[in-house]
């Protein structure tokens, strides 16, 4: 009986060997795949096992974390003044994931970033729990509040404020907004809230400041004026331009209309900007031609996505347009469309003497110990216009605020330059126009610490009342005042 017994012994050994091989396959060969499998609940459990790092504004955190009750995912995100800050932070929901800064800097906030590897390893050895790092933003809480409160009182809209000297984003508001805390968890009610927000036709989840492109209307005349100066079409802002009135667009029989009875015939650039003459800037566009206009627009950042690091949609200035289309595009109509961020960049480039700085809103990434992991250094993006031309354009924009359509943005004791815009849209301009305002303010030393772009999609206002100066300029003014420390 011993021969079969020995064989049975080998057989039992083989059974155990098969289990050992299978176990090596599972726990060695397949371990990484199983561990990081998105369906593996451990991935989410691990991710939410510790409080998330914070997003910092003006040295104070605008986010927090709170322990959940009765779910596997221990901590969920909270926001202070969620609706005000959500265009900056985005959301970080256990159920629907994260967006914007919450998503882009997720590694730092959760503590999983490779740059934290050494610390994590040390913590593991010393038995400390893993912690998330912080994201320090460039934002200015007072400016953000001014922008958000102003927009909220006007309904739908967006505003962006930039420090022209560095490109640092000071305010980024969008209304209607949402409170990301309301769906930060993983429960049924979080899902319901999100679905409701997602289906809302006012699109509260859309960050209008970055992701919505509007026809910029007359505010685009800043770009057109810059193009005229840069391409030497006109060099003196106070010399008469060659503009008949009425002016018929080349290749058509349609005259380009001005808003109301304003002195636009052969108007100087300064006067044309002050009264917002469509004929003068339309003709500049037609005279320069598509290529030259496009060149200047692209120097300002058109036709390119911006990464702040949150991505913005690309603003549009078309190519392959004929003269009349170029003329319409040059007054911010036709295909021209811009994000509020783009128009703030236009204002900031002019205010910074022609130097366009790369816009950014994350200044610093901090380890859990508050050590700096990464620090942003301001970078020049392009030079849309020369210092001399920029100063000419500044003086023109300052005239708009002191004597023109933008008087609502005046701040006593400070020099302010700006441009209004009332952009028509919809089939046959049937829908309510967008009210725009671009501006910058100069500090006492002559440098410019803030440039703002505000757009109000005011569906409730009487059509005649909509004008950039009336609706958007007061918001821009209060944002500038907040930055200047007037409030």
């Amino acid at each position: 009986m011993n021969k079969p017994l020995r064989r049975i012994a080998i057989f039992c050994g083989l059974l155990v060997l098969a289990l050992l091989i299978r176990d090596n396959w599972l726990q060695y060969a397949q371990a990484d795949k199983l561990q990081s499998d998105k369906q593996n609940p451990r991935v989410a459990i691990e991710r939410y096992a510790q409080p998330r790092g914070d997003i910092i504004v003006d040295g104070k955190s605008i986010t927090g974390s709170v322990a959940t009750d009765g779910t596997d995912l221990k901590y969920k995100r909270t926001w202070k003044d969620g609706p005000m800050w959500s265009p900056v932070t985005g959301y970080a929901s256990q159920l629907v994931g994260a967006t914007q800064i919450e998503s882009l800097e997720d590694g730092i906030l959760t503590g999983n970033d490779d740059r934290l590897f050494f610390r994590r390893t040390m913590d593991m050895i010393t038995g400390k729990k893993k912690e998330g790092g912080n994201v320090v933003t460039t934002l200015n809480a007072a400016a953000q509040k001014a922008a958000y409160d102003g927009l909220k009182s006007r309904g739908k809209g967006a505003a962006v404020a930039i420090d022209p000297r560095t490109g640092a984003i000071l305010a980024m508001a969008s209304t209607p907004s949402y409170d990301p805390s309301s769906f930060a968890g993983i429960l049924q009610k979080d899902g319901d809230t999100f679905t409701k927000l997602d289906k809302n036709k006012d699109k509260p989840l859309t960050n209008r400041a970055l992701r919505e492109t509007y026809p910029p209307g007359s505010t685009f005349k800043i770009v057109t004026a810059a193009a005229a100066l840069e391409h030497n079409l006109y060099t003196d802002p106070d010399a008469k331009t060659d503009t008949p009135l009425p002016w018929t667009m080349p290749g058509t029989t349609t005259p380009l209309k001005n808003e109301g009875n304003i002195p636009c015939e052969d108007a100087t650039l300064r006067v044309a900007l002050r009264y917002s003459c469509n004929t003068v800037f339309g003709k500049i566009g037609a005279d320069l031609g598509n290529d030259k206009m496009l060149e200047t627009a692209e120097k300002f950042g058109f036709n390119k996505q911006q990464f702040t690091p949150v991505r913005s949609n690309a603003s549009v200035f078309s190519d392959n347009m004929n003269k009349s289309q170029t003329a319409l595009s040059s007054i911010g109509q036709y295909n021209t469309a811009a994000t509020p961020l783009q128009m703030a960049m236009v204002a900031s480039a002019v205010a910074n003497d022609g130097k366009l700085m790369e816009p950014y809103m994350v200044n610093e990434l901090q380890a859990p110990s508050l050590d700096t992991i990464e620090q942003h250094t301001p970078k020049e993006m392009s030079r849309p216009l020369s210092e001399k031309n920029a100063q000419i354009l500044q003086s023109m924009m300052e005239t708009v605020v002191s004597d023109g359509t933008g008087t609502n943005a005046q701040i006593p004791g400070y020099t302010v330059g700006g441009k209004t815009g009332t952009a028509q849209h919809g089939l046959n301009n049937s829908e309510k126009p967008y009210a725009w305002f671009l501006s910058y303010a100069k500090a006492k030393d002559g440098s410019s610490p803030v440039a703002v772009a505000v757009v109000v999609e005011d569906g409730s206002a009487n059509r005649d009342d909509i004008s950039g100066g009336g609706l958007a300029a007061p918001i821009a003014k209060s944002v500038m005042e907040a930055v200047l420390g007037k409030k």
Partner: protein
Amino acid sequence: MSSSTTHTSTIGAIGAPSRRNTELALLAFAVVIPVFAYANVGLAIDGSLPAGLLGYGLGLGLLAGVAHIVVRRFAPYADPLLLPIATLLNGMGLVIIWRLDQSERLQQLAKSQYGSFSPDAPNQLMYSAIGIALFVGVLMLLKDHRILQRYTYISMVGALILLLLPLVPGLGMNVFGAKIWISIGGFSIQPGEFAKIVIAVFFAGYLMVKRDALALASRRFMGLYLPRGRDLGPIIVVWVMSILILVFETDLGTSLLFFGMFVVMLYVATERTSWIVFGLLMSAVGAVGVASFEPHVQSRVQAWLDPMHEYMLSRQGVAGHSEQAMQALWAFGSGGVLGTGLGQGHSDLIKFAANSDFVLATFGEELGLAGIMAILLMYGLIAERGLRTALAARDPFGKLLAAGLSGAFAIQVFVVAGGVMGLIPLTGMTMPFLAYGGSSVIANWALIGILIRISDTARRPAPAPAPSPDAEMTQVVRP
């Protein structure tokens, strides 16, 4: 008759050392390791040593000590490895069951399912004590394993009754699709665990008598010795019984276990490879046949082939699907080579049966590949020490019984661990000693007791010149 019996005398060397001190030293490790593991879990979960540490250590030490003294007194020449390995596995099982008792997830689950949560570890400690009591009882009362030979046919009846009990209305329970439980006075018992031992006694007794007929009376066909038609009777009876268990109790594991055990013992008894071929053919036919019309088996196979799909179906709330298999695979994978450390894994996500059928997944996640390999090797050692006992045994009944029990033990480990690790379809059996469950622990301690008894008899210095029981048996040759 068979020349092989003459070899046995060389294995059971005369004057062999008793090895009791080796056993004692190993037992010290078998007690200390789980105590450290217990402390480890407490420190990981609460940051402090568990309150029951001293009691647990003393309890496990006491049980091991009693078992050792009884072995020393009643089976002094027994194999020195079986008791320490069983103690270590039992101790580690207790630690993991206690660890899963601490899981909030499982506590909440129990509260939502049954209205209250009660920890399993104290029960398991009680079952372990009963198991060791039975172990002690086996060694004290069963002075010689050959006594069991007298009860061959009573064992058969007993085994059949045990196997049929879960089908008795009012007594049997259907737990998650498997009808292998009975409920008596609030206790649920898995009769199949006990039937495993009883039926091994029957097979051993029966085959000892019939083996010559089965081995010698055969025709040669295509290089194989084919048994005569009438000798096929017993194997067909066992085969039908396995199929019936599979169909009526929907228990793939037990079915496989009995049939496998029978084939192993038949092969050992007759030394005919043809029986293995027959056994494999019949189990293949049975498995395919049953799978083709039994939806329960089909769904098990589906879940095995695509555990992710099964998981998604379960998540979507489709009835009759379970996420356990995929959760177990994730637990193993997440453990990696070294594991997360005791108390730091998430194997409680398996939820149902996390501490019984799926207990190995918790070991896998928290002790890693290293821990599982150690555990599998320990199981392998138990089986191999049992088979060595069979080799050393001087009587055919002892050989067959030891081979049957060890073979069954190995097959059970393979079926359960293979199922949990996704090597074969999942079945409803428990890891011996590790898993929560009174029947399993008690029956396996009895199994170890019987193996120790046989090994004591086998290794005991022969009172020279003893008449070999084999020699007597050879006179009972039947046509």
